């Protein structure tokens, strides 16, 4: 009966008559893929997140400027509007700035200068960048990068002021910095999740397989960790990572701290799966056939809960991203010159800054969108994890 339901709802474009025999022989992963595709928000999220990650990996190419390049002449400059057509022909440009400085408060006010046009273009030459790893403690990893100075989109003449969403207090391009910050913010979640996945599988697996007092002990431990408010404890642990350390070390320190409190969800999923699978007939059959325990786990149990683990991994990434953002925002996590969305938001703490430069909140929007997308993606994966239902 369940098969009929899946066949009728499948939007793959196939006729239902062809679908029914396919369903019967389709592998578990194929069924999951079909089910996942039906979750429209999850599909959209997958596309958006893939785009985010591609942009983050090639940040140097996609960002119009480098994170460190600044222009004292254009501090706090407001966003510019791109005009795509110049006299009826395609030729993107922005207007320049006219600025006045208040002689008393030294506050700058910007107006649009319609007389100067700053030509923009695709694949323009600009600040040099490198794509790949840098700052890692191992040399050969650092060598894995390519350098360039072509940018996807930017001012045609290097050095012209082009601030798509505005400039910060030092005259740095906020848009470029948001793109570069994505590298740290998006990867913290992934690295942290893999650390906590290791802990979760280990402790959850022991808990579910061994049982008895060890299970009891681990379960009480998990309960305890879950009942502690995580942010205050994270704050306390983050102070143990001195700011003067190497940025890469600080980065890993913070991810370890984040995952130390976040493995509990994973452990619960793993344990729950082990417990329910232990009761299944096909496991009993394998046991009666004399299959060794290790083979039962890897061949019979693992494939059937891998999908659940992928789903819960996806759902726990947002917590990590939010944790890093919160810590960096408080000044306890990563420190400048490293850019992450949290580090950028730290500059937007005072009401004076937000009132004058609301575009400083843009990294916050990036955090929200990313977290939202991960939630949708996780929901879709969780629904798809059990394709037989």
């Amino acid at each position: 009966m369940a098969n009929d339901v899946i066949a009728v709802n499948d939007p793959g474009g196939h006729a239902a008559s062809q679908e029914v025999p396919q369903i019967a022989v389709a592998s578990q992963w194929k069924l999951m893929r079909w089910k996942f595709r039906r979750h429209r928000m999850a599909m959209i999220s997958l596309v958006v997140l893939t785009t985010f990650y591609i942009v983050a990996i090639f940040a140097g190419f996609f960002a119009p400027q480098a994170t460190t390049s600044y222009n004292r002449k254009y501090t706090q400059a407001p966003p510019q509007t791109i005009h795509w057509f110049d006299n009826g022909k395609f030729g993107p440009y922005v207007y320049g700035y006219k600025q006045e400085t208040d002689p008393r408060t030294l506050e700058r006010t910007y107006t649009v200068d319609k007389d100067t046009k700053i030509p923009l273009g695709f694949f323009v030459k600009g600040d040099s960048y490198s794509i790949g790893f840098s700052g890692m403690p191992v040399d050969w990893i650092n060598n894995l990068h390519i350098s360039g100075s072509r940018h996807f989109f930017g001012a045609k003449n290097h050095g012209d002021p082009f601030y798509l969403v505005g400039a910060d207090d030092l005259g740095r391009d906020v848009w470029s910095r948001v793109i570069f910050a994505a590298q740290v913010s998006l990867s913290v979640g992934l690295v942290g999740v893999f650390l906590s996945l290791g802990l979760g599988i280990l402790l959850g697996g022991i808990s579910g397989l061994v049982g008895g007092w060890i299970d009891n002990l681990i379960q009480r431990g998990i309960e305890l960790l879950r009942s502690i408010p995580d942010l205050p404890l994270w704050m306390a642990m983050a102070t143990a990572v001195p700011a003067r350390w190497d940025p890469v070390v600080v980065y890993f320190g913070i991810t370890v701290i984040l995952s130390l409190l976040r493995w509990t969800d994973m452990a619960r999923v793993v344990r729950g799966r082990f417990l329910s699978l232990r009761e299944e007939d096909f496991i009993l059959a394998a046991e009666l056939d004399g299959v060794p325990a290790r083979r039962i786990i890897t061949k019979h149990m693992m494939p059937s809960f891998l999908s659940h683990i992928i789903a819960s991994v996806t759902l726990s990434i947002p917590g990590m991203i939010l944790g890093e953002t919160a810590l960096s925002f408080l000044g306890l996590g990563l420190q400048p010159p490293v850019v992450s969305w949290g580090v950028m938001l730290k500059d937007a703490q005072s009401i004076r800054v937000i009132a004058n430069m609301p575009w400083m909140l843009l990294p916050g929007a990036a955090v929200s969108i990313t977290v939202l997308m991960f939630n949708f993606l996780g929901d879709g994966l969780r629904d798809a994890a059990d394709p037989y239902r």
Partner: protein
Amino acid sequence: MFKYLVKRVLYMFPMMFIISLLVFITIQLPPGDYVSAMIEQMRNQQGTNWSPQFEEAMRDRYGLNESIIVQYGKWSSNIVLHGDFGYSFQNSEPSQKIIWDRMGMTLMVTLASFIFTWAVALPIGIYSAVRQYSMGDYIFSIIGFIGMATPGFLIALIMMYIAFTQWGSSLSGLFSPKYENAPWSLDRFADLLKHLWIPMIIIGTGGTAGLIRIMRANLLDELNKPYVETARAKGMPEWRLLLKYPVRHALNPFVSTLGWTLPALISGEAIVSIVLNLPTTGPILLQSLKVQDMYVAAGFLLLLSFLTLIGTLLSDIMLAWLDPRIRFE
């Protein structure tokens, strides 16, 4: 019920012990201590001469030279026996005064946010389940998802921006300047209530979204069950039927979420209060962590964790009262 209660309360003690140990170890993690931080700061300012002997004397005075186990023993026994949370290096006074002052405010703000989340999530959750896929359900779902994805401090920043540009006022603080340091009175309390709603909404928003989804899902499971149909067939008024059977049923998992909503609320409170500069634990905790004023930080961490433990205890008792199956397990 009584047996369950006793068991559940006794269970708290080992939990508290482990938490206190965990907190103390965490506080000891940063390299150096308050004295070394202070000396370093003093070295940067010229004209002061700090001899190593003086540094040692300071350490001796604060008991920082003893082994960690002895330090933990002294610290925990003083709290249990005398309610003494140790000395605040930074303020040169016992830390319990500042801790209790701030904890009271935290309790107040957290409680208000908690009431807010339930008061909002419960009716909206019921509405969304009963009118599934209606316009309202979609709107609440969208708001809920965005609320869940936006960190509290960002909502606080956005609210500050809106308040500043629209009404020209800043949202910070819990009191008007007039009542800031005044002793407690009815007027001061009224003033507090006037300011409390802003942090209450900001802190509550994140949790509300999650709770709405839980309530909606639980109720949807119940609504299709035959007993609802039976009651309807007997001609029971729709809203009475709803509140009397399926909602009560769906309430159990809802109550059990208290165990994790409370820690989330307290976490949210910590960071939002830093942004809004509320006189609660958040700002002082951050400050004390930064200067390694360890007894103040430890005291806050400990009490915040206890607060959630007590919260889970209350939710378990409530659950046992709601659902007899748990009592007799």
